[in-house]
């Protein structure tokens, strides 16, 4: 058995999918091959618009006489997104899916009844899942792909055709739904044939004599007796959603709503395919931002929050008329927490927290410190914080004395006695050195232009409030003294 999902008024629905406020309204889609707005004509209208009097082929100027009709420009990008979503919906049920048309997909249901239940239940589930994508479908189940396609185009809602009942069930479908070939349809209407049953009742030999092999093929379809195999869709998974805007967006806050809708759709599609994402690309016209995630996630709120924080730090240079979001699929993270797992933040929540902190203090100022493999003092880099990293710290055998660094080191005035510091002053602080320990000489990277050398001292400075211990050093290349930090 095969199921077909057909989206009536596909162009209208693909536009209304990301604009829930258009639900229930009369919509007409206009398009012009020349791109000139004055030459735009209606290419598709939904039932409400047709009932208002809108007809395909009407010019945009004439549409002005229908104030209740919402006019939208055709968006090929949004149609492609809706089509990809439709394929994902079908792919969530079976790996054998045929991309029959832009508005139609066919699914091989062989063996799925044991997984999901009866064919009627499967048809209902397909219907519900497609509704969640923002598309209103017709779903039909039949013994062959073509009968399923014809039934989905001819009947609203869901319809299950039992095996062997194809001709009887398809009988009432208008012949216009069999093919879009106008010469054939005109011939049929001249002969007084209007339904599948009218055409199917003709003898096949006579059809062959008058209409050739093309006629025989259509005759087979009308009888629901096609026996072709399914042509499976084999393209790699691609999760991309696009929205083309009639009015440009200049502020970030309205952009949040657009991004939220697109990311919601993508996350829903990812869940249908049992996937998550670790990389999200956002295209705002020609401007691109890439969001890297440390682990695969499928939480739309979190992704939108991270995207907005990133865009606040790196806003687009101009107003935006086209927003596109693409998620690179990855296998979802599967973690089973134990009862005695050490305390650590939830990775998804942590990402948002870190992005918010980075927004406050700057991106390079938040992360895990990593000491570099060099003897150069205070050489480190800030790497990404990983809450899943296993422990490498071991308890020190004794409590160690901490150094609070002055960044950058403060230039100091030092008076010497017998080569050792005896008085020191820097940045408003001064006092006699009561004990000096040093010099501890070190140097390095002499082969580089920014080689370094220093003579370090630990100096205890007595003041009225007590003694303080500083680390100071002298640069032997120029004789200048610096206070590097205070032991605390």
């Amino acid at each position, binding site marked *: 058995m095969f199921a077909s999902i057909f989206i009536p008024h596909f162009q209208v629905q693909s536009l209304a999918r990301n604009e829930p406020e258009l639900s229930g309204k009369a919509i007409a889609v206009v398009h012009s091959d020349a791109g000139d707005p004055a030459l735009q004509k209606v290419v598709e209208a939904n039932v409400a618009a047709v009932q208002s009097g809108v007809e395909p082929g009407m010019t945009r100027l004439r549409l002005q006489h229908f104030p209740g009709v919402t006019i939208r420009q055709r968006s090929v990008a949004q149609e492609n997104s809706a089509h990809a979503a439709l394929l994902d919906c079908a792919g969530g049920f079976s790996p054998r899916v045929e991309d029959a048309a832009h508005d139609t997909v066919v699914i091989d249901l062989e063996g799925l009844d044991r997984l999901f239940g009866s064919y009627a239940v499967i048809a209902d589930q397909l219907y519900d899942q497609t509704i969640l994508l923002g598309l209103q479908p017709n779903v039909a189940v039949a013994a062959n792909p073509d009968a399923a396609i014809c039934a989905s185009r001819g009947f609203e809602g869901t319809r299950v055709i039992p095996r062997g009942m194809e001709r009887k069930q398809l009988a009432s479908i208008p012949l216009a739904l069999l093919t879009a070939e106008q010469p054939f349809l005109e011939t049929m209407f001249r002969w007084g044939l209007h339904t599948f049953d009218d055409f199917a009742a003709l003898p096949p030999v006579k059809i062959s004599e008058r209409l050739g092999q093309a006629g025989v093929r259509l005759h087979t379809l009308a009888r629901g007796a096609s026996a072709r195999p399914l042509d499976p869709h084999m393209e790699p998974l691609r999760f991309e959603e696009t929205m083309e805007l009639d009015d440009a967006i200049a502020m970030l806050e309205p952009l949040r709503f657009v991004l939220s809708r697109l990311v919601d759709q993508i996350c829903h599609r990812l869940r249908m395919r049992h996937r998550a994402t670790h990389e999200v690309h956002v295209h705002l016209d020609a401007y691109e931002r890439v969001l890297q995630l440390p682990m695969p996630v499928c939480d739309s709120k979190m992704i939108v929050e991270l995207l907005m924080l990133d865009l606040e730090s790196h806003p687009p240079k101009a107003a935006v008329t086209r927003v596109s979001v693409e998620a690179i699929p990855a296998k979802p993270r599967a973690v089973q927490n134990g009862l005695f797992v*050490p305390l650590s933040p939830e990775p998804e929540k942590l990402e948002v927290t870190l992005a918010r902190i980075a927004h406050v203090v700057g991106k390079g100022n938040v992360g895990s410190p990593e000491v570099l493999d060099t003897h150069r003092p205070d050489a480190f880099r800030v790497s990404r914080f990983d809450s899943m990293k296993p422990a490498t710290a071991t308890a020190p055998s*004794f409590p160690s004395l901490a150094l609070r660094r002055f960044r950058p080191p403060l230039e100091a005035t030092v008076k010497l006695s017998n080569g050792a510091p005896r008085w020191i002053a820097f940045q408003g602080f001064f006092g006699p050195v009561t004990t000096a320990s040093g010099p501890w000489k070190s140097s390095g990277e002499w082969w580089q232009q920014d080689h370094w050398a220093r003579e370090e001292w630990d100096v205890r400075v007595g003041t009225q409030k007590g003694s303080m211990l500083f680390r100071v050093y002298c640069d032997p290349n120029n004789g200048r003294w610096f206070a590097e930090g205070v032991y605390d």
Partner: protein
Amino acid sequence: MVAPALRAQLESSFGERITTPFTDLGRRVGETVSTGIAALDARTGGLLRGAITEIYGGASSGKTSMMLSILAAAMTRDEACALVDGHDSFSPGMHSGKFLWVRCHNVTQALKSTDLLLQGGGFGVVALDVSDLDAKALQEVPLSTWFRFQRSIEKTPTILTIVSRMGIAKTCASLAIRAASDFEFEDRLLAHSVTMAEIVRLRFNPGLKPGFKNVCFNFYPSLSGSIARP
């Protein structure tokens, strides 16, 4: 209305939203963890989870060493730790693993970052070091900020450790320690620091009387990062 009757009425009106809002607080016995300093643990019973610990003192008083010792002890328990470094003065060394360092440059950045970390949750210890920040700006931080921090970590396992030059968290801190140090040299070599910690406030362990509980311990110079010293 007498107090017990009023209390019973309030408890019944809270219903299932907050179970026994008054009785629990009085009876609760919090979990404590080690500071990494045996002498201090023996005197205070360790650090209380879900509470603020404040360590304060002047320059070279040993407060930073105590803070790093608390962080190191938490990391040996494989807990995620965070240091909100108010003036970018932390010297990276032995700390590794699940250690988050936030380099701030003013009071606003430090408080916002701490707030976000506490709201995010999941950290064993969050240390807020505001020692080198402008004292006037710190004095102007409203007390409600510290109350909010305290409320954020209440009923969570997170310990917020505040390090400052003077006591700023006031009554929000369950444990307040004032530190002072001196340094011992042997043959012109720095041998160790002698730190005196005065327990100014100890709210969670009523068996100990604050004010008279001075505890003394040593910190030793670490050789990590130094190549020329003996």
